[in-house]
């Protein structure tokens, strides 16, 4: 019995012996099932970010006042036991008292839909044109509202696809900018030390002591009204990262200070390595995994920040679409009572933030395989 155990033990030992740091991190991360599931979800999310039009069923800007507040049309995969996807049709009836259109689901009428079917034309990453969509109605003139419509009759499903693109990109770009700022400034602070360190530390303290929401409000209000949505979008990311790099800067500085004292860093110095080599070859790889873990925990914060700003009307403004902009539609309690599906963008925010946090936690636990 133990002979068996011993040989497998030896094999495992050999496998571990030649495993690089990244492989050890991956082995530990893989054991974290919740984080793994979240990672898969995030991959899907970022495919949406890359190709929102493929997932959208219609043009997110297409308005039709006569099709406002249409409820969710559920997808049914089978019809009489055969695979034939459809959504129930909607019939509108005007309420004679309130004069408002009231929509009823009519399960007797089925709207056929197809997967991977042609629909409106769109450009793949702005490179070439296609008309392939994940879901498309069989009759191209028919509109379907998988997650209902808003007060202007825009399709919420399609808008969420585009809003996800904006919000997730803001999160990613803002964190990327913070990471660059954090590593450069924190690294200088930790490696150079002395006066430079003092100045950067005081700057971090100053930035951290400033109440963030009023600062965003002020900075966003200062953005010229006539900027295009793209310009506003970039301005918002820069604002978010200017305030967001401080935590990371601190962390990088601390790591640098600790690493400077490590024996293997001294060994490299005594071997005659240049400063650049010591930093790039010895110090950076040692805390890179931590930086990645910290960053993945910073992304959801950025997403929430963007959503809050846009919700308040100070971030990304219509006609650009972000999850925050979509939630603006749900600001009115009356609308909410009438069309609760307008809260779905909030659900998307919650789930993606949770996923980011779980992945970040998993990465943080896996980041240092030598801590055991």
């Amino acid at each position, binding site marked *: 019995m133990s002979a068996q155990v011993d040989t497998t033990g030896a094999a495992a030992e050999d496998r571990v012996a030649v495993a690089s740091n990244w492989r050890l991190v991956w082995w530990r991360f893989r054991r974290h099932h919740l984080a793994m599931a979240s990672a898969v979800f995030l991959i899907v999310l970022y495919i949406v970010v890359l190709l929102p039009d493929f997932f959208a069923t219609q043009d997110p800007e297409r308005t039709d006042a006569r099709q406002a507040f249409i409820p969710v049309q559920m997808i049914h995969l089978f019809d009489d036991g055969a695979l034939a996807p459809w959504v129930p049709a909607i019939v509108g009836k005007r309420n004679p008292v309130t004069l408002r259109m009231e929509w009823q689901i009519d399960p007797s009428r089925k709207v056929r839909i197809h997967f991977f079917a042609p629909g409106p034309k769109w450009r793949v990453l702005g490179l070439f044109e296609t008309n392939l969509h994940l879901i498309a109605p069989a009759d191209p003139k028919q509109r379907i509202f998988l997650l209902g419509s808003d007060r202007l009759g825009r399709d919420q499903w399609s808008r969420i696809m585009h809003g996800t693109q904006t919000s997730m990109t803001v999160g990613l770009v803002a964190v990327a900018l913070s990471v660059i700022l954090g590593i450069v400034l924190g690294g200088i602070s930790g490696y150079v030390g002395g006066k430079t360190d003092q100045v950067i530390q005081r700057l971090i303290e100053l930035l951290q002591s400033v109440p963030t929401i009023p600062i965003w409000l002020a900075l966003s209000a200062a953005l010229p009204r006539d900027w295009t949505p793209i310009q506003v979008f970039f301005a918002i990311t820069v604002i978010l990262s200017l305030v967001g790099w401080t935590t990371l800067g601190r962390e990088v500085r601390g790591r640098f200070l600790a690493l400077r004292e490590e024996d293997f860093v001294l060994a490299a110095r*005594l071997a005659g390595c240049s400063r650049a080599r010591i930093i790039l070859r010895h110090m950076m790889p040692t805390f890179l995994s931590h930086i990645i873990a910290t960053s993945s925990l910073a992304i959801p914060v950025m997403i929430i920040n963007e959503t809050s700003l846009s919700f308040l009307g100070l971030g990304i403004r219509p006609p650009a679409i972000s999850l925050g902009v979509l939630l603006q539609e749900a600001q009115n309690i009356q609308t909410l009572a009438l069309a609760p599906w307008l809260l779905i963008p909030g659900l998307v925010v919650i789930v993606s933030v949770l996923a980011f946090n779980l992945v970040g936690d998993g990465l943080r636990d896996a980041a240092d395989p030598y801590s055991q």
Partner: protein
Amino acid sequence: MTAAQPLLDVRGLQKFFPITKGFLQRVTGQVRAVDGVDFTVAEGETLGLVGESGCGKTTASRCILRAIDPTGGQILYRTRNGATVDLATLGPAELRPLRAEIQMIFQDPFGSLNPRMTLLDNVGEPLLVNGVRNRRDRADQVAELLRLVGLRPEFMHRFPHAFSGGQRQRIGIARALATNPRLVVADEPVSALDVSVQAQVLNLLLELQTRLKLTFLFVAHDLSVVRHISDRIAVMYVGQLVELAPTEALFDRPRHPYTAALMRAVPVADPRVRTIDGVLGGEVPSPAAPPSGCYFHPRCRHAEARCRQEAPALREIAPGHFARCHLAEQMPAADPSQAVAAIS
């Protein structure tokens, strides 16, 4: 072993660390970690540097390696091409070519290797930065180095986490030898190792020394280890050398009471020899506020009035035997009963 000119000649080495207070980092005092240390190391010999924690032995060795910058004194080193340079005053650019000649073996076999690099990269790095650009050449030399320290060359693609403490220490030695150094500073190289592995590493160091004509500065706290490997031993106490002598002479007749106390305090692995009775009382004073006169007088059982006021100088008591004690001439030989009992 030319008596003419030593390989390393340390004169009046000092390293002070400032004590700062408050927001403005005002300097309020100095920790005199190393305070005027003189010794020489001849080519091919092993000088043991012993003392308890905080005595400045590690700081002194780091100054010689120029891992830290000394506050004062000279570190005269005779280079491979015969020139004598003062390591204490060289700038980083002038120091870099000399780095290959002076290498270090670390105490902690776990912290001294980069865990994210394979043995090939860890051991091969000194080769790379000293001009061996071709990866194949480097691999050949690393294989040779691994063989030299008793490891299989096939291990070079493994990462340090695959090895035990003793094996890692061998890897650290291989890296130190990569640049074909002349002086090797070993900072407690066996104190983190298990007893059964300690002897292996000590034997390896002795063997490498004869084979490669290395000169060792061996820094350690364990007297029996230092005794085993050193030709001469320097004892430090509160930043100063208190005794320097050939190993035999030091153990036969320690001329400084601290050395004698240190020897008595070592627990002897023989239950028939009681070494823990009559131990040295008191505590090591802080190098920030050392006592007056002889630093050792508050703990010394031979102390006289003179010891409290007058700081003794390091004097040559017998040929090659230096001690910093007013009463060095009167110090008795080491307790013979211990020796007899241990041999029997």
